[in-house]
Structures are given as structure tokens and as C-alpha cells.
């Protein structure tokens, strides 16, 4: 692995140089100050944007002073500009005599909530492309930026990838502000910190870092910020980019950052001391640090009773194991360890495989690959043809292949169980890791049988134990073992018994519940003694 990374290093250097050049270009406007002549300013904007058709310019007069406002059509709200800027500018009476027209404009003429003075070209373009309106006045070497953001945005809808039965039904959207608001609404505490930064030299994507002061580990917060600041890339299209640029280990199939489209999940992570990274343009919020067992915790675990959610969680871990070793166990058992199969079952499998022309490994590979193709195709199909493909897929996999004698019915069962088990992992990032490991184990099982599977699983375990997510061991409550944090690992304790926040991830305020939170009918003796005191 490290050899590969070394080979990549030289290439990376080159790329960094290229990036650097790209980075320089858009920063050119910074060099020039804002002109005193507003017309010159407007001309400059036209020149910089290449006379783009969506850049709207309107010149106006306030009293005897001339000026011009610029906004991007579609990003800024026409309504807001007309009602809160132009209307007041036209109707306002400007007192005669020498006045500071810039200050007057700022204080009296703008009926907007957020008005800022900007002094360099960088800020001009920045606020322009964020949907704000920039106003130049004749004779001022400053500009006013009024917040008139008003683009079309998707309404908050039900989550589409992380469903829950009892949980809230809202999910994040593509708009950063909506997302921070969704979290703010759930954490009514002044300790919730929302730090912002922009990443992407060209895209200038807004990023918000959320954490709860006093609960989150300051060291990790610092580390997250440092890693984010280190990013030097032309554009960020979504939180997936950020995730890949800040994770601890690239050479692994296991996700070391968590992402969710559910505000309740992200909020609960914040309460545990984790840090959320919201990226404008993505409805998926990244939370770090992430540990292995976290990927088996579904939101419903906490909304339903503890015994039920414990059972279901263990089932999920079992399903993950099936998804990882299912086909390889079949291969190993039928090609190496026939003595391990009960006699009648061995005969039944042998009978079914009698007409199959391929060795078990090839048979398994054909079925697995077919299924992966179907799944991949189904993911991207236009809705209108989706049904047709699923019918063809079901027929090909389920019936035709068996009837043609290419695969045995047992193999179909194995593949289906594996596939269904795979879907029971709550977070897709972990499910997809299982898919990859499965193929490696299939190869090992073909070569070495159960010995190979054990070898593969041992390597996997060692690898998992070596992973870190922002300094936190990936297998955290299990290795290193931590008794307190077992409350939310394999077993989900009753809510009143989940007393502590996860160790290391959270620092400082570790207690979640008060004393004697166990519910129950009032105790007779206690009541009597209390009455006596009264």
C-alpha cells in the first residue's frame, strides 16, 4: 500500500503545482481597488464576467447622487431588490448639503436585514455569487453588499436513503443555511458553534463546521479545522469530496467518516461530542470521528425500546457477517470441506450441482457479478424502464439460469441471502465495504477453503484495528475495550442507563443523565417518609 502511495506522491506534487496556477487566476481582481467612478466599476464587472447574460445591472439616482446596483439573476430575489432597495432609493428624500452619501445609503435607504461594506474586488464577486446585491455609488471607493439571497431551493422532504419508522421525517437539503437551521432547531443551546469557511479556489463552496462547545474534544475540533484549511482544490461538489480530503486513511474500504441526511442523527452525534461538517450543495452531512460500530446504529434503535433495538442491532451485525462471508462459506464447504455439511444436505447440493458445468467458485462469481450489475443498473435507471429491468433480472437470476443448468438453486439462495443481508446495514458506506471484502474472501475460499476465509477475516480484523478516525481507534469500544461505552455497542442500554458520552470523542462534560433516572412506580416507603417530613 505504501509503495502505491509513494508512486502517487510524485504525481501529486505536479498536480499541486497546476492547482497553484489555477488558484492565482481568479484572484486577480484583488489587485485593483474599487474605483471612485461607479461606471468604471460596472464596466469592470462586465469585463470580468465576460458580459454574462445573468449579470443584471441597474443604474439609479438617489437624490442627486448617481449609482448602480449589480446582482446575479436567479441567485438574488427580484422581489427583495425591488421592494427593499429600489423603492426606498427612489422615494427617499435626500437632505441637501454635503453629506456622506455612502453612510446615508447604508443607514437609511437599505431596508434589508444584512448590509455590509466591502472594500475589495474579491468580496465584490464573492457576495455577488452568493446572491447578494452589490451597490456602487459615484465617488465612493467602497461598495455596499445587501443580502438579497433568493434562489429556487428544494423544500425539506422525507429522507430517501435512511428511513426510520418512528423518527422525524425531515431531511437535509442542498442549502447550507436550511441545514444549519435544522440542527439549531434541535439544539437550543448557545454552546452550539457554527464555524464557516470556504473551500475550493474556484467553486468557493461554503462549509460549516458544527460542534458543541464543552462537549466536543477541542483537540479534534482543531484537527478538523486544520485538515479543512489544508484543502487546496479548485472545486468541491459535495460532502463526499470533503470526506475524501480529510479522512485518516485512504487505503481502506471501510468508511472512517460518517454521513447522514437525517438531522436527528447528526444532532445526536453532536451531543456525543462529534463534529459535523456541512457542505453547501449536498444534503449529506459528514460527522467525525466515526467508529466501526456506529455504522450499525440506526436511528430507530433509539426511538424504540432497548430490548428490541438490541435484538435488531445484533441481527444487523449478523447480517453484515453473512454479507461478508456468505458466498465464500458456500464455496469453501462445497469444494474443500464436504464432510462439514450434513449428509442429506450434501447429497441435495450434490444433486443440484450435478448438471452445473462450472466449479463452485465460477458459479458463485457469475451469480454475484450478475447481481452486482443488476443492482448498479437499477440504481441509475430512468424510472420508466426500471421495472422492465427488474423483471428481466429476476427472471435471469431466479429462473432461467437455474433451468438452463448454469447455476444451482442453492447458489441462488446463497446470493439472495447475501444480497438481502447486505441491505440491512443502515449506512450504505459500510454495506459497500462488505461487498468488496466479499469478493476477496471468495477468492481466498477457492484457494484455501475455510483456512483462507479465516486468514482473510484475520487480516480484515487486524486492518480494522489499525484504522483511526481523527485519532480515535476505529474499533473503539471493542478494541481497545471500554466497559462504559458498551452501553451503545452490541447492546443498546435503556436510555436512562446510557449515562456517559463516548470516551475520547467527547471531553469534559461526560455525563448525559442525572441520578436515579430509572423509571418506575413511586416507592411506598419513600412516599411515607416524604410525607412525614412535610
Amino acid at each position, binding site marked *: 500500500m505504501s*509503495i502505491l502511495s509513494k508512486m502517487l506522491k510524485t504525481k501529486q506534487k505536479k498536480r499541486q503545482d497546476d492547482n497553484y496556477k489555477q488558484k492565482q487566476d481568479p484572484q486577480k481582481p484583488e489587485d485593483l481597488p474599487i474605483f471612485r467612478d461607479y461606471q468604471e466599476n460596472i464596466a469592470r464587472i462586465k469585463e470580468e464576467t465576460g458580459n454574462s447574460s445573468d449579470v443584471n445591472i441597474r443604474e439609479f439616482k438617489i437624490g442627486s447622487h448617481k449609482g448602480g446596483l449589480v446582482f446575479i439573476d436567479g441567485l438574488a430575489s427580484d422581489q427583495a431588490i425591488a421592494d427593499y432597495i429600489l423603492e426606498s432609493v427612489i422615494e427617499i428624500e435626500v437632505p441637501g448639503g454635503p453629506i456622506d452619501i455612502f453612510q446615508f445609503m447604508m443607514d437609511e435607504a437599505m431596508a434589508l436585514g444584512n448590509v455590509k461594506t466591502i472594500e475589495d474586488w474579491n468580496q465584490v464577486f464573492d457576495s455577488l455569487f452568493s446572491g447578494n446585491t452589490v451597490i456602487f455609488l459615484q465617488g465612493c471607493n467602497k461598495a455596499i453588499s445587501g443580502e438579497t439571497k433568493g434562489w429556487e431551493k428544494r423544500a425539506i422532504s422525507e429522507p430517501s436513503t435512511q428511513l426510520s419508522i418512528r423518527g422525524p421525517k425531515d431531511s437535509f437539503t442542498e442549502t447550507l443555511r436550511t441545514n444549519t437551521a435544522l440542527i439549531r432547531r434541535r439544539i437550543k443551546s448557545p454552546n452550539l458553534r457554527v464555524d464557516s469557511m470556504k473551500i475550493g479556489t474556484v467553486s468557493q463552496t461554503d462549509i460549516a463546521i458544527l460542534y458543541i462547545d464543552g462537549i466536543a474534544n477541542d483537540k479534534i475540533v482543531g484537527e478538523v479545522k486544520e485538515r479543512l484549511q489544508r484543502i487546496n482544490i479548485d472545486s468541491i461538489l459535495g460532502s463526499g469530496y470533503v470526506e475524501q480530503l480529510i479522512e485518516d486513511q485512504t487505503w481502506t474500504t471501510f468508511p472512517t467518516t460518517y454521513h447522514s441526511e437525517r438531522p436527528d442523527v447528526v444532532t445526536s452525534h453532536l451531543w456525543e461530542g462529534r463534529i459535523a461538517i456541512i457542505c453547501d450543495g449536498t444534503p449529506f452531512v459528514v460527522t467525525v470521528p466515526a467508529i466501526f460500530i456506529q455504522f450499525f446504529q440506526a436511528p430507530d434503535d433509539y426511538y424504540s425500546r432497548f430490548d428490541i433495538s438490541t435484538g435488531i442491532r445484533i441481527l444487523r451485525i449478523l447480517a453484515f457477517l453473512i454479507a461478508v462471508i456468505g458466498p465464500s462459506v458456500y464455496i469453501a464447504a462445497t469444494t474443500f470441506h*464436504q464432510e462439514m455439511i450434513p449428509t442429506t444436505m450434501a*447429497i441435495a447440493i*450434490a444433486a443440484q450441482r*450435478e448438471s*452445473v458445468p462450472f466449479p463452485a467458485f465460477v458459479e458463485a462469481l457469475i451469480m454475484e457479478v450478475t447481481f452486482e450489475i443488476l443492482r448498479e443498473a437499477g440504481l441509475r435507471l430512468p424510472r420508466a424502464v426500471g421495472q422492465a429491468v427488474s423483471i428481466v433480472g429476476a427472471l435471469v437470476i431466479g429462473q432461467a439460469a437455474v433451468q438452463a443448468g448454469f447455476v444451482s438453486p442453492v447458489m441462488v439462495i446463497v446470493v439472495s441471502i447475501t444480497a438481502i443481508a447486505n441491505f440491512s446495514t443502515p449506512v450504505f458506506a459500510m454495506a459497500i465495504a462488505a461487498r468488496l471484502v466479499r469478493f476477496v474472501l471468495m477468492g481466498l475460499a477457492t*484457494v484455501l477453503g475455510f483456512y483462507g476465509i479465516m486468514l482473510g477475516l484475520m487480516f480484515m480484523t487486524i486492518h480494522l484495528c489499525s484504522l483511526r478516525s481523527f485519532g480515535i481507534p476505529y474499533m473503539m469500544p471493542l478494541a481497545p475495550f471500554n466497559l462504559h461505552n458498551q452501553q451503545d455497542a452490541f447492546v443498546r442500554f435503556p436510555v436512562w442507563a446510557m449515562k456517559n458520552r463516548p470516551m475520547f470523542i467527547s471531553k469534559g462534560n461526560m455525563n448525559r443523565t442525572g441520578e436515579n433516572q430509572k423509571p418506575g412506580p413511586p416507592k411506598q416507603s419513600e412516599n411515607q417518609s416524604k410525607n412525614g417530613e412535610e
Partner: protein
Amino acid sequence: MKKFLLVMLVLIMFIPILSACWNQKELTDLAFVMALGIDRGDDNLYHVSFQLVNPANVSAGQTGGGQGLPIAVYKSKGRTITEAARNATKKVSRRLYYAHTNLVVVSEEVAKDRTLMLNLLDAFARDPEFRTTTEIVISRDASAEEIVTTLTILDKLPVTKITKELKFTEAMKGENMSISIDDLIDGIVGNGKEPIINGYKLIGMKEEANKAINLQKTTTDAFLAADGLAVMKDGALIDWIENKKSRGVIWILNKAKSTDITLKWNGKKNALSVAPIRSKTKVSTAFKNGKPVINIKIENEGWLSEANTAIDLMDPKTMGKIEKLTEKSIKKEVQSTVKEAKRLKCDIFGFGDVVHKANPNLWKKLKGDWNNYFANLEVNVKVDSYVRREGVRTNPFWSDINK
């Protein structure tokens, strides 16, 4: 240098995989040997019959399954079992696979010959594929080959019929019991206990047993049935213990679970039937004048399964009487079995082991000639029966008829 080391490390990591598909065997390349039949030929070689399963004809569900015979038998001969097994590969298109072998049938002729019998066993105990939990039986009045080639009606695989039958007859009747190669070898090696082996008979028209037509009738022309226990001494068959007496062996060995006991009542024969459902046997030893005395204590609990006479079952005293009669009956049976074993001078009950555990020093003196000593051993039998209930009826209808 560091790079070189890393490359080497990666290469070393691939070494386990370089063994390629060593030991890999596809299911479709295997012939499952379900049973082995061992006979002695006139040429003094082992004649081994391999009962192979034909998977497609056994498992239902598949279209076209169930047609044709579920088993095929191939024969080969050799001076040793291994030689015979290797010779068989000349006739079978697949690799013979013994991991699922559930039965070894040895002909009476082979069992009676000490060397032939002992030469068999090591091959089974040594082969990693072969399981020592495999059932072993001796064919009576038939060759092992005839037993192995017989088709059975209820279970498609004849092997399943034999192994399951032994298990259920052990539980429901108690005249035979499951005996594995392991048990047999233990018995042969130990001093304090001689092994027993189940006998199997092919009843009916032997020449029809291996034909499909045998399966087309409700009363098959030929069928297999357990019959008697073979008593082995010094690794060779010396005699058989038959039916009633064989039940005594199972009682003493603490393998009995349920059976049926028929009793006489007020002079009427076959009047009552008691079915024990739980039974426990304890064999202990006491020393009288430095001589071991064996005490057998059988405690069992059962129910009255038949009452074919006018009898007042509501009376606790009657129940007490029935219990006494049951005890007497069991005691008689066990005693007759002990007598039979003493006659054969063969300690099949493991009394020697009991003495060994109780007094190792004395055992050192006795073990050399234990079987002869056993012939004169004092054995006391005590039975404690309890009839818990009498089914869903109290007094039989007989009580009303006679009124």
C-alpha cells in the same frame, strides 16, 4: 532498500496462496460412499462392497429427480481395506469419498476370524476422512454385500434406514443399541469390558432385495431388520445374544429408555402391559471378603399401557402390586442375561471397569484372567419400578363386562 523490503514483504504475503487449489475437490467429482460391506472371499481376500449414492435420484424437487435407483454398489477386493478401496477406483468414475459413510457391515464369517476382524479396524480409525462414529453391524445369515445392496422403501437411502432404526429401536424397544467403530475399538482394547455389535438380517427373498421392483410393493419381498447382539471376545465373534436376553444387556448398560413389559395378572397371561419411559441403571461394586460383588440397581418409571383384564386400577394397592410384578419381570430378564454372559465367559457389561474404578489394586491382580473370574462373579439385581399413570382411562372396560 526500503522499497525492496516492501516488495519482498508483499511477495511473502502471497505465499499461502501459491499452494493453489491444493486439496480442492468439487462436489460433482465425488462419489459419496454411504456404506461399506465387508465379506471374506474364497480367495481369502477382503471383498468390499461400496454403496455409493446417486444424488440426483435421492433429492426430490429437481425435475427428473427420484427416477432410477438411489444407490449403486461397486465391488472390489484386496488384501487390505486400502488395497480394496484403491482397486475400486478402477471401476468408479469419481473419487470415493468416505466422510459421509454412516455404516460398515461386516459378515459373520469375517467377524468370527480374529485376524480378519482386527485388520479391518485400523484402516477406519486412521483415515482422516472416515469417521469413527460410523455405525458397525454384523450381517447374519446373509453376506455383507446382500445387506449393502438391499433397497429400502421408506428411506431412500438404505443407510439412513439402518442408522435411524437402530436409534429408535434403542429408544423404544431396547433390544439393540447404536454402536460405533469407536465403541468397538474401545471394547477390544480395554480389559474390563468386551464389546457387542448389532446383528442385521435380510428377511425374505434375497434375490429380490436389490431390484427396483422390491420398492413397488407395500409388503416388500425382502427387508432388513435388526436381530440380536453379537458378543465379541478377544476381537472375534463368539456367540449371539437373542431378543429378550439382549434387552437385559441394554438395561445393564444404562441405555434403556423405553420398552414394553408384559405381565400376568390373576392367572391370566398377557393381561397387563407396562411401558417404562424413563430408566436409570447404576452398577456398583462392594467387596465381600476381598472379593468383588456387583450390585445392579435399576430405577424406572412408566405407565400402564394396556390392561386386558378386570382390574381395579383406582386402588393404590393394585398399582403397588403391578409395580412389584414389573420389578420382578425386569429382574428376571436381567438375571437371565447375566447368566448367559457368564456362560459365554465374556464381560460385556463392563463390570471389570467398575471394579477397576472401585479398587485399582485388586483390579491389577484380577485383570489378567477377568473373564473367567467374571463367570463366577456374584451379581445382585435390584429393580425399583414406579407406575406413574394409567393412560387416559382408569378402569378397563373389562371390569364392566364381567359384572
